[in-house]
């Protein structure tokens, strides 16, 4: 089974994000990390591969930079990576991202596509569904558990009131939540091997996509205004001296809750 995992390199969430003052797009530094939520998808792919042979290909769109994030995922055990890095893709929205990833996945010919439910920096949260539509395959979304069946895949899908068990045959896409597995840490051997693993770097035209349909021009939207949200007035912070709970009771009384 060939498994494609969508991963994204994002600026380190520990450092404040910068927006370009003209385009209002996030400035992407050369040092980017793998989006933490993608580690779950990579782990699911590795577990499926270990259970039934196969290949795990990472598919990523965005500035390659020094590929620190991609190497992190390769070090976990993925076999190779395809990264689409093209100046034309600047300002891409979710749909442009999905078009590029879907084209790269088609080129690889994957049986199963795995993605996180949303990225930690953009969180539009629809890229997996867009990819499934572009590939014309079923999407088992918001998986909190998964298992391989004889002919396909079965998951527990989170719903508003609990979960549904859903299954389908391959080819298919699944989107996974952070609770689905415990991602492994790369071993020293894995980190060393990751340096030798193949990384294909592609452009929009390598994928046969029309440049006007992707990137900022193809996004169909313009950011016209950016402003800070007035932050909430911070209140009083006190050290608990064994009577802290009484202050809470006081405030609850003021709020007429007790």
């Amino acid at each position, binding site marked *: 089974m060939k498994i494609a995992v969508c991963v994204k390199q994002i600026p380190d969430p520990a450092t404040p994000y910068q927006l370009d003052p003209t385009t209002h797009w996030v400035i992407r530094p050369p040092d980017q990390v793998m989006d933490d939520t993608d580690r779950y998808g990579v782990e699911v792919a590795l577990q499926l591969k270990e259970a039934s042979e196969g290949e795990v290909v990472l598919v990523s769109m965005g500035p390659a930079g020094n590929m620190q994030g991609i190497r992190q995922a390769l070090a976990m055990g993925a076999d190779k990576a395809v990264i689409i890095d093209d100046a034309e893709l600047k300002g891409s929205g979710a749909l442009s991202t999905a078009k590029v990833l879907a084209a790269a996945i088609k080129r690889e010919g994957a049986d199963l596509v795995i993605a996180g439910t949303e990225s930690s920096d953009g969180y539009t*949260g629809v890229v997996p569904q867009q990819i499934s539509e572009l590939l014309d395959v079923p999407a088992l979304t918001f998986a909190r558990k998964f298992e391989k069946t004889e002919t396909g895949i079965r998951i527990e899908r989170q719903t508003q009131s609990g979960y549904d068990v859903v299954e389908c045959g391959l080819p298919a896409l699944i989107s996974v939540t952070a609770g689905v597995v415990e991602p492994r840490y790369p071993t020293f051997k894995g980190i060393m091997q990751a340096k030798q693993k193949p990384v294909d770097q592609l452009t929009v035209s390598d994928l046969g996509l029309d440049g006007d349909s992707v990137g900022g021009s193809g996004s169909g939207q313009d950011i016209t205004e950016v402003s800070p949200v007035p932050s909430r007035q911070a209140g009083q912070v006190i*050290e608990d001296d*064994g009577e802290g709970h009484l202050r809470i009771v006081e405030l609850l009384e003021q709020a007429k809750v*007790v």
Partner: protein
Amino acid sequence: MATWVFSEEVDGGPTTTALELLTKARSLDGEVAAIYLGEGSDETFAALGDHGATTVYHIAATDTLAAAGIAAALESLIAGGSPRIILFGLGNTDRDVVGRLSARLDRPVLANAVDISASGPVAVTSEILGGTTKVVTEVRAEAPALVIARPKAFPAEPSGGAAPTVIPVELPDRGHAGEARITSRHAESSEGPDLEAAAIVVSGGRGLGGADKFPMIEELATLLGGAVGATRAVVDSGWVPYSMQVGQTGKTVKPGVYIACGISGAMQHLVGMKDSGTIIAINKDPEAPIFGVADLGIVGDVHSVVPALIEALKTKS
């Protein structure tokens, strides 16, 4: 021209978010219609009408994940009804449908909307970077604009509208793409008041240390007549069900009082509760970001402060 609102049936009726969006839709553009996925009932349709829908496109519940079929059916409906805006909530099925529809129509999705304007080009206000920055995005693409709104961005107000015209919608066969079969459904009931509607919410975070410490959060919530919430780290660890998650990927709450116990205040969590009336936080770490939004912050051990609070409240009652 029209504005359409998508709603999936939850607990036998439309979601609160759908009623909020119908209310907002009345002020946007032309006729308001609802796209309703579920069993449906006269009562349900009346509620949709009462919030502004004059037409309901009714898609009967199926034993498959219907998003592929719904996206194809909506493409045909859109060609006939020319909506200018279609509004979706943050629900999982909402996201499945709008994602697929966006790819089919080649239209962008504008997500996390907290305001929408249609007086000029359709413009959506959203909060990014953990709710610290507000951006206005104008839609350049042709109609319909596909928008995902955040829950509680708008109040739900009845308009006294009449019962709507209900039009049943058949889903086309999508072949393999439509073959995601639901083999069983499971409800994970949580006791006490509804988290999203509760006047008081008591939430627990990783700082509690383990699932065995969570009952004290439940006890405090019960004493106050409130609902129980949790952070993503807690639901991901399986201490409590996902339905209790408050945050960007969970529920958005705006109770009168929010008590955060052992919660550091990651952006992901703050987005879901920062608009609460009074915020009380208990955490060991004086640097925890939660104290930046709290009206009262207690720097202390949640394992001593919460039990003491429970005892004090018991004595009072």
